[in-house]
């Protein structure tokens, strides 16, 4: 089992490293990720939402639905713990 695991892990790692060959270099301001969607968030956030913290404005407004899902995830975890291990005396 350990050998199989080691092979699987090395294979995964090798594939992922192979994928990094065509990556843009680290911190490159001209990378696609910095040029395609994100500039609008940075440049328009004060104008459109009146919130200077871009992370907050993206989190709660542009992608606010993700955050609802995320809060639901943590709610699910809380309810799971109650269902699994809490005792009810009544």
């Amino acid at each position, binding site marked *: 089992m350990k050998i199989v695991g080691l092979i699987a892990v090395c294979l995964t790692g090798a594939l992922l490293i192979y994928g990094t060959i065509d990556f843009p270099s680290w911190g490159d301001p001209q990378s696609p990720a910095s040029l395609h969607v994100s500039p609008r968030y940075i440049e328009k956030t004060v*104008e*459109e*939402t*009146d*919130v*200077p*913290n871009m*992370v*907050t*404005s993206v*989190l*709660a*407004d542009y992608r*606010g*639905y993700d*955050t*609802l899902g995320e*809060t*639901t995830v*943590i*709610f699910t*975890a*809380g*309810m799971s*713990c*109650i269902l699994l*291990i*809490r*005792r009810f005396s009544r």
Partner: protein
Amino acid sequence: MIAPFEDVVIRTACRLLIPFIQLYGLYVIAHGAESPGGGFQGGVILGASFILLSLAYNADEVRKRVSEKRNLIFCSVGLFIYSGIGAVCLALGGNYLNYSRLHHLLPVDPVYARALGIFGIEVGVGMTVMAVMLSIFLDLASKHEDEGEMTSLGMDR
């Protein structure tokens, strides 16, 4: 499994610290729009203050202050604030979570209504995160003497 552990230094230090930690948590939630922070971070800090209380005293001390029922209400109400704000936008004729529609209710312009909407949901997120963190911690840390009920729980056959 938190056994009561009497230590004057720890208890006094915690009693002094906890109000400030909670105040800081509220600040992080409220100031999330202007500086690093937000609902999650503030909620976790608030939850941590209660966890610190239960570490310094014991779990029952926390249960005395925040009962299980009240904790559950906090969990749900936080999410209700969040999804409710979205639903109000829906009811006002916009898309879900379109906070700018809130300017029909509030005496502000649509752009500032978005900022208020963001603040509202941050408060909701903070409440839920605080309550769930505390609830998970108390569930995991509580000692359960009677092992009987758990086995009977699984008797689905």
